[in-house]
């Protein structure tokens, strides 16, 4: 069992809170008046049947979708929407349901790209690649190597990611997100399409990330076993509406959740 008790976390400070958010595409309501928060240091799961609005929720949080109503408070700043790179700048990192790596680049360069916000030298320095520019490049390479070490992907660091198997691509993508040193890490189905062993590895990495770097994590996952093992608290969406919110145990015994899931074969 994970070390900090869920009750401690519930009492903790919220890093992000979503208030009365609604999002619609044309006439279709993807999210309808949803509110919840994510506390500092926790692993928060967002679950729900297909089409529940989970991915849309992540897209709202990191600024890719702009909700029509509601507010998002992140690290004390409240706004209705922001640009994705502002979210990144603010400390939100993200992985995608279908791996969104830079296919033409090596695993190493993909993760290096995640450092882009931390790099300061202008293009003239980069062009000369001497002195401070080289020092900076090396310093960040080192940080990236620590992540590579952490995720145990040493053997593939210089391989173009398009040539990697799916499971490793997911790991590289996690690496790229970690390279941003985020305060909040959004994982969209980190274990989709993985076999059991890969899932176990990924679970371990997620726990280690939370543990080692103290990163707050919000994740979407279909595998209920994984969700129950990993997360401190779970919020359940169904058809864009929040139907439950609480510890894994509370959620598991919630009648609305059971009903929502009964409709979908899992």
């Amino acid at each position: 069992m994970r070390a900090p008790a869920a009750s401690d976390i519930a009492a903790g400070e919220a890093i992000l809170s979503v208030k009365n958010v609604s999002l619609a595409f044309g006439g279709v309501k993807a999210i309808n008046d949803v509110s919840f928060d994510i506390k500092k240091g926790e692993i928060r799961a967002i679950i729900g049947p297909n089409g529940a609005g989970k991915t849309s929720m992540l897209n709202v949080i990191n600024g890719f979708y702009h909700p029509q109503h509601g507010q998002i408070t992140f690290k004390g700043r409240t706004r209705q929407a922001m640009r994705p790179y502002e979210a990144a700048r603010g400390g939100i990192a993200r992985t995608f349901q279908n791996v969104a790596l830079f296919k033409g680049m090596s695993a190493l360069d993909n993760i290096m790209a995640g450092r882009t916000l931390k790099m300061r030298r202008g293009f003239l320095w980069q062009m000369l690649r001497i002195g401070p520019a080289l020092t900076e490049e090396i310093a960040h390479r080192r940080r990236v190597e620590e992540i590579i070490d952490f995720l145990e992907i040493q053997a593939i660091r210089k391989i173009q990611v398009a040539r990697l198997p799916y499971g490793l691509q997911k790991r590289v993508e996690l690496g790229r997100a970690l390279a941003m040193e985020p305060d909040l890490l959004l994982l969209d189905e980190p274990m989709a399409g993985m076999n059991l062993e890969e899932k176990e590895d990924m679970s371990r990495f997620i726990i280690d990330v939370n543990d080692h770097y103290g990163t707050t994590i919000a994740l979407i996952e279909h595998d209920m076993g994984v969700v129950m093992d990993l997360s401190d608290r779970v919020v359940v969406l169904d058809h864009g509406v929040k139907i439950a919110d609480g510890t894994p145990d509370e959620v598991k015994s919630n009648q609305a959740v059971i009903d929502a899931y009964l409709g979908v074969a899992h």
Partner: protein
Amino acid sequence: MLYREAGQFKTSYAADMAVFPIRQDRIALWLLLAFVFIGIPLLANFQIWPFGSEYLLRAILVPFLILSLAAIGLNILTGYCGQLSLGSGAFMAIGAYCAYKFGTGVNIPLFGLALSIPPLPVLPSILLGGLMAAIGGILFGIPSLRIKGLYLAVATLAAQFFFDWVFARVQWFTNYTSSGSVNAPQLEFFGLFVNTPIERYMLCLIFVVVFAMLAKNLVRGNLGRQWMAIRDMDIAAELIGIRPLYAKLMAFAISSFIIGVAGALWAFVYLGSWEPLAFSIDRSFQLLFMVIIGGLGSILGSFLGAAFILVLPILLDQVPHALGIPVSVETVSLLVFIVTGALICWLLIVEPHGFARLWATAKEKLRLWPYPY
């Protein structure tokens, strides 16, 4: 087969991130540099085959170097940043005409006040020409923030047609010469005059080597990764904190700068005197073919592509000649069309990443020899 990499291990990141991490490659590079910087001038000086006449230097090597430079510029935009451009000819033209203006003195009447800059030396003129091209690049790159892919390609054509017109119709740029054709100023660099083909060759070589090096540094640095990120997956790029505005406009600016400098060199060093037609849409396509055939996203590819596109017509002209088959000039030009087009299709089918990838594959084979993979 030729590589002996066992024992070449890296103890520092600087060594690990080197452009040529393998010793054998470094040796080959130094040999090549020695040949192009010392060997060729010597051979040319003593008129040793194939440098018996000036033809090779003047008509092949100089244009090859300049177009390679332009191809590097275009490759940054199209190959690295993924923004297809059909307007490179225009940016070459901006470079050429602005360098010409700076070289002959700029006089802008502004509400009665005349802004006037005295004629500048050649080097600053060329660089300022590049700078003007960069500004043009930024202006015509702004649509790239809203539009993508093929729509953008069409938008860059707007630059091509607009500047074609500008330099043909706005006589201010041509210093009101009656013919519309202009002559390059005397090429003088820090008191040295560049006249002979050898000197022109050396001048271009220095430009190309310096710019290639700077470009290589750029594309393997943070900005280069930003470009490639945008090229490969722009949404994800934005979500890791890359500002598309900055990255794309930088790509347009730097690409156009290099192309502009190449344009100025093309006009000053290769042509000497020129008309707007020298930078028509045909030039844009020629450059685009160079980067496609050479390899998108590869500095080396820019050279390979430029060499190929330049050498192909010569080959098509010479080979039937050598075989005793009479071919008219017109037929050769049509043959060039057909062969170039067919080659592009063939390469896109067989190796969409161009000669650079073929080269890399061959190198990989040599490194792994006798293993097949």
